[in-house]
């Protein structure tokens, strides 16, 4: 009877351990799914951020104000 009681305790501890391990695995998978490492090993989010920053800089390097209508005002044409 005492032996049976000890086995039951061991089994319960084992099940708890397995459940904990499964939880850890699930957590790591859910974290890795968004913005973590991609299939090729590099971080996709970092790559995207790099391109966004470069494009921001290129697009903002010129201003539509370069074609302001003041360039063709009477005074600028000497009229």
């Amino acid at each position: 009877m005492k032996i049976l009681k000890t086995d039951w305790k061991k089994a319960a501890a084992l099940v708890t351990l397995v459940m904990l391990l499964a939880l850890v695995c699930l957590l790591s998978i859910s974290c890795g799914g968004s913005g973590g490492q991609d299939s090729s090993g590099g971080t996709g989010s970092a790559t995207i951020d790099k391109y966004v920053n470069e494009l921001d800089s290129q697009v903002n390097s010129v201003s539509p104000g370069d074609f302001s209508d003041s360039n063709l005002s009477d005074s600028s044409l000497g009229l």
Partner: protein
Amino acid sequence: MNKHLIVVTAALLMAALAACPACLAQTAPKRSAPEERQEQKDARAARITERIELVIARFDNNKERHVAAYNAAKARLKEAITELAEKGYDVTRLTADLQAWDGMFVKFAQDYATLINLLRTAEQYAPYESQGQFAAAIQQARAQLVTVRQDALDIRHYYQTVIRPDLQALKDQNPSSSPASSGT
């Protein structure tokens, strides 16, 4: 006798001096009032033509900077699409965005060329002497300049409201191991 001679000589000299400016004035060609007006108009027209050339040079310089920036941005976006497709991202939307953006660059270049043509046309008309043709050409150029400015605004706005969010949205994807089609 001597006194008389001196007085006569002095009188002759004074008469000659008094008459000299009048002689000089007669020898210089006198311009008529219409001629003077024409000369003033010609000088003003030359000045306006010079100003238009300056404006065109400034616009050309600005246009070159814009085209260089747009080409660099387009190349970078193409690069991003290729790299992200290789990593397994679905870049279908971004590829379509690039195509639409490219169309905007083409429109900008065409509208800019029209603006310069209108300014060159205005240059050909002498201001005040072409029955309003000069004024009309300048007015058309001003309207075209508004279009060119709007094109530049549209290019920037499309990047900020469409391309940038679409690129950022790729972060929500969980890329597959097999590369997606880049569509380019």
